């Protein structure tokens, strides 16, 4: 996006977020009641930014990105909010403009997904078709979106495979997925996701199914590629250590709400929401010797017909009277630092003092 001659336009384009999600809610209509999977999620994603969405099982992190990519089917529905995506796909003038993906018909999504939003899922064996060679699957994507010839697409696929670090790409392109190892399969999935120069790369737990040494390779690769392609990335994981490695901005989710959103450094150095704080206290660490883990008591919430209160309330040690009356909203307390809490943790240093007294 840097080939415009007018330098003002370049700056202007960079400053506009490519994706702006506002108060997004996704619910599922079940026999037992309404499952509120995602509620009131708000964030902006810029180019060159890696937004990490971290949360436990059932916190709504996967449903958030699936909603953005239009992959939520009945009984799920978007209960409210906007997903503004900056694209020239549907504009008549060729200028980039915001399209609301939340209101877009399902048929139009095939022009967005794979082309402007590349997706990487957890298990590469289920996201690749075992009956087709990896070349077939890559070429299909490129021909469909870029309207190239098969020969051009094949050439591009080989180049992409080389970029993602597959040895002898010209030979491996005719392999079937089962002939590749787990790490290599994930590399192929990444290559497919990048094949059409997407604006946003969505990675849903891409390293969870892999071994640690392979996970490290994939994370390094994704960091390098994201810089090369200068796309925005949304990285979903339950592993705080992985998110610390890759994300520039982190959104912590719990019980369908965003509890805290801040630059990666702030989340780890000065977490303000009690949930984030407690979460960081209860993970075992490799780099230091710990005597004790401080577990969070209780169980994660059930999302069926939840009360309209802070989801962390039953497990929170800092709850105040106000917590039982009203749901806090996501407030901006510092530049780039948003939290949802009535009684935030002021800072680590202060809390240590409190405990000492």
């Amino acid at each position, binding site marked *: 996006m840097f080939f415009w001659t007018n330098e003002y336009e370049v700056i202007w384009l960079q400053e506009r977020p490519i994706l702006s999600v506002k108060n997004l809610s996704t619910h599922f209509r079940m026999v037992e009641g309404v499952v509120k999977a995602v509620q009131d999620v708000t964030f902006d994603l810029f180019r060159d930014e890696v937004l990490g969405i971290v949360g*436990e*099982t059932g916190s709504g992190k996967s449903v958030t990105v699936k909603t953005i990519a239009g992959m939520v089917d009945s009984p799920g529905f978007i209960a409210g909010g906007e997903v503004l995506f900056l694209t020239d796909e549907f504009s008549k003038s060729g200028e980039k403009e915001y399209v609301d993906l939340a209101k877009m018909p399902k048929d139009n999504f095939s022009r967005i997904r794979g082309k402007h939003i590349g997706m990487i899922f957890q298990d590469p064996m289920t996201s690749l078709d075992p009956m087709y060679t990896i070349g077939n699957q890559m070429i299909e994507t490129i021909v469909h979106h870029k309207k190239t010839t098969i020969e051009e697409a094949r050439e591009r696929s080989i180049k992409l495979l080389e970029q993602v670090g597959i040895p002898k790409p010209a030979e491996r392109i005719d392999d079937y997925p089962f002939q590749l*190892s*787990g*790490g*290599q399969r994930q590399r192929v999935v990444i290559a497919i996701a990048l094949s059409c120069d997407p604006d946003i790369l969505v990675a849903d737990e891409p390293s969870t199914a892999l*071994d*640690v*040494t*392979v*996970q*490290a*390779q994939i*994370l*390094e690769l994704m960091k390098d590629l994201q810089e090369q392609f200068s796309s925005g990335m949304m990285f979903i994981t*339950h*592993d*705080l*250590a*992985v*998110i*610390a*490695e890759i*994300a520039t901005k982190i959104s912590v989710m719990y019980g369908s709400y965003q509890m805290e959103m801040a630059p*990666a*450094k702030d989340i*780890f150095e000065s977490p303000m929401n009690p949930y984030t704080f*407690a*979460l*960081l206290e*209860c*993970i*075992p*660490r*490799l*780099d230091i*010797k*710990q005597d004790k*883990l*401080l*577990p*969070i*008591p209780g*169980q*994660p919430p059930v999302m069926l017909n939840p009360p309209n209160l802070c989801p962390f309330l039953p497990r929170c040690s800092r709850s105040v009277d106000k917590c039982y009356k009203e749901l806090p909203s996501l407030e901006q307390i510092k530049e780039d630092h948003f939290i949802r809490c009535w009684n935030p943790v002021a800072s680590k240093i202060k809390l240590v003092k409190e405990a000492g007294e």
Partner: protein
Amino acid sequence: MKLLEVRNLKKYFPIKQGFLIERVVGFVKAVDDVSFSVDRGKTIGIVGESGCGKTTIGKAIIRLHEITDGEILIDGEDTTFYFMRRKRAAEYLKSRYFENEAFTGRANGLEPFEKKINDVYLNAGKSSSRAMSALFENLDEKRRYLRRKAQIVFQDPMSSLNPRMTVGQMLTEPLLFHKIAKDLDEAIEMVRELLVQVGLKAYHVDRYPHQFSGGQRQRIAVARAISVNPDLIVLDEPTSALDVSVQAQIVTLFDKLQQQLNAGYVFISHNLALVRFICQTVSVMYLGRIVEQGESEAIFSNPLHPYTKALLAAAPIPDPNKKRNRKDLIGGQVPSPINRPTGCFFHPRCKYRMDICTREYPPMFKVDEKHLVACHLYSTSQEQGGEKK
């Protein structure tokens, strides 16, 4: 006396080929010559990537797998032949003890467990067949005792709990089988206490597994394991299916129970940070063999084997300010355990590879009392050091 001693454990799975007439074409050497021991009240961690044989070790210890070779001593008793078929057990006893000149010819210097068998042998008038029938006499009882003393907690509580039984039914079964409780009423009373002990409520006794969350289910699995007062608990990735906040709860529970029961744990995991937190000793495995073994702190603060270094460098650290040590990262994949590389199994991925590594598998080298490593880098330097002296 060590609670558990595993010596030269081997578990090979045959690869069969052919229709009607099957023949063995090779072996998957899942566990190959592994030795370690656990004390009461202590925890040993077994770490490695998938396919390195760590789960097979766990299953072999509690004899869910019949072992191919090696010895498993529990509480100073040779339990290796307990779960073998009679014919194989007889073969084992003959070759290991009664017809083994190294054993029969050596009256003194026998280890305690060998002595016990030697006593039986002498009582039987040095007749191996009579000694064997004496050993087999109360084998059922011994098996039952071993099943009670060694327990396991599996990774996924949903698949290790029977969905059609209530918690009460599941937990009373072992109590009644091992005659710990007189009758059902007493058993149910004990189950209620157990549930409270693992952090559940007594009224959960009539619920089915699907009515619980993942962490609660794992608590039930833990309750089932500790209900029979085991000395040894194998924990096979007990927290990898759980969320981090719940993982900390379960880990704290293990710690509490260990102090209560004074049990020894074998903690199998791929999560290095968790192993560092829980375990006193650690064994790092690669392709069925232990490559580095020793005190947890020695291994994590001063890893010696290039594979251990790579594992530690690859594990992400929850601190954005710390950059990973890229120098020790390795590429490639774990090779197939059917067709392992020659020499040191790690040499195709190793940065410090020498000529000797492609030819010979390195022996276990003692760096100091509490730290063992199987790597030529250290064995050669030791030889040089020895020459200097």
